């Protein structure tokens, strides 16, 4: 099998993104941008979760907190010193990345369910802080009035299309990074942590340092996904930014797609995200979490290693026979 190197893969991914962007621009339906933005946002979130949860085996229940930190850093900057969204994305990444590093540092010795509970506690603590922080809207929330259009390379484009383009770019960056990690020395190190931390240390793997890298990277990408969110939603309140759907989806999507490869979160996010968008339009947005729950239960029973795991197992059996 030929393995495409990172540079080639990046070019292919950029070409695919350009084609998607061109198609969406040509089709020019606002709902398509709205719905696709959400799916792309979940691709970034699921990929970010998978760097720590899938590659290293450390389950993070606090994804919503990192996402919300990105969103609230944008709200803060919007009031304090307005900047273009790409800059806000970088700030969101820095804030959530630092928080990820801090979380990693404080929970270095925790494993399994203890680590998961600690991440859940982080989300609760942060939500409490935000609810009581008036500058960013407190419990009332904050309004972000976004312009209808934005000028981009001399062309006036719809703002939602602009946000869609940004999220598409972020999804590409997240996927290229995840794939590069997977095939690098770092990725091998992460996999040893997932498989057996004691044996990893005995092989010379600096597990604590690698865990810090994973928590920082994972947090940073979640923050990046959250930074444009206030501009997308227009009104940000703690309940929406720290919503259960972010924590649940960012776990469920990689689990359904498969956690050992960058493809898993992508497949899971597209599948689950599309099903949720379809249900939102045809039935009700209230059934979203029900869909996630049912699919998660089904996959845990039928394909515990996700769709990618199922395919890999099938290929392995074929090779053996």
């Amino acid at each position: 099998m030929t393995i495409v190197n990172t540079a080639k893969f990046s070019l292919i991914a950029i070409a695919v993104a350009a084609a998607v962007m061109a198609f969406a621009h040509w089709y020019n339906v606002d709902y398509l941008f709205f719905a696709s933005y959400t799916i792309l946002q979940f691709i970034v979130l699921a990929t970010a979760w998978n760097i720590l949860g899938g590659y290293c085996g450390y389950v993070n229940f606090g994804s919503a907190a990192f996402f919300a930190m990105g969103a609230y850093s944008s709200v803060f900057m919007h009031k304090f010193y307005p900047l273009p969204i790409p800059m806000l994305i970088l700030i969101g990444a820095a804030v959530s990345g630092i928080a990820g590093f801090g979380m990693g540092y404080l929970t270095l010795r925790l494993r399994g369910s203890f680590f998961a509970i600690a991440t859940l506690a982080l989300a609760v603590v942060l939500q409490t802080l935000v609810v009581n922080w008036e500058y960013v809207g407190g419990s009332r929330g904050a309004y972000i009035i976004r312009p209808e259009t934005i000028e981009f390379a001399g062309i006036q484009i719809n703002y939602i299309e602009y946000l869609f383009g940004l999220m598409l770019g972020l999804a590409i960056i997240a996927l290229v990074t995840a794939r590069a990690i997977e095939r690098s020395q770092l990725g091998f190190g992460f996999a040893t942590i997932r498989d057996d931390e004691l044996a990893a240390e005995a092989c010379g793997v600096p597990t604590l340092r690698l865990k810090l890298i994973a928590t920082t990277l994972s947090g940073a990408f979640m923050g990046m996904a959250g930074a444009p969110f206030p501009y997308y939603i227009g009104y940000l309140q703690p309940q929406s930014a720290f919503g259960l759907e972010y924590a649940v989806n960012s776990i469920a999507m990689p689990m359904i797609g498969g956690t050992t490869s960058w493809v898993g979160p992508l497949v899971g996010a597209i599948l689950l995200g599309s099903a949720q968008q379809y249900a939102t339009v045809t039935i009700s947005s209230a059934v979203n979490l029900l869909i996630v729950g049912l699919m998660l239960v089904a996959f845990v029973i039928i394909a515990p290693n996700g769709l990618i795991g199922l395919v890999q197992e099938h290929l392995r059996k074929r090779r053996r026979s």
Partner: protein
Amino acid sequence: MSPLLHVDSISKRFGGFVALDGIELEVQPGERLGLIGPNGSGKSTLVNCICGTLHNESGSVRFDGQAIDGLAAHERTHRGLARSFQLPRPFHSMSLADNLRIPLLYTVHARLGPLRSAGDLDSRCHELLDMVGLAKKAKQLPRDLTQVEMRKLELARAVAAEPKLLIADESMAGLSHSEIEDILALLVRLNERGITVILIEHIMSAVMSFSQRLAVLVSGKKIADGKPEDVVRNPEVVRAYLGQ
């Protein structure tokens, strides 16, 4: 000659239980040392303290002339101290070749710099798997291996770190006579290549045929240390093993 490993009066407690009580041990470069003792005597705790998995409360460990007490387990591996585990702990999601790639990437790189190309890594993995007779299974997962193959993989992975000292913790437990012979021959070959070996084992025939020196632990204390034929006749050792 200065010892490769010098364990100086180390102690370890788990709550009120004294697991190690002032253990002294020296291992010379190139030596084959057997370490025996009944279950619960502190052998594995001693290995864990030497390798950095556990931290001793008092005493110190010197390796290759330097104190390594403050070092993490992976840093000790970088210095040339490798171990195999009592129960094999392979990386289950990786092929056998990738299992060996880890110490090559993380330890040999750390010690000698990033000298290995992908081709070098592949050929070194193949060489190591060939040494333990697993070359044909390089792309398989550890779950496809038999018990003895798993033990061999464990040893090959420890050797991939290019250690000066290898601690083989019960590498022969649960194996048949011919499989034990296989592992013993492998350990002797490794020793002949210049790797100092500490063998922790319950199978006395294997320990006796392998070891140039034998140390005995009982209840966290070293009760004997010397030539194997003298140690097994030591009344204290006989009492500890046979309860006389």
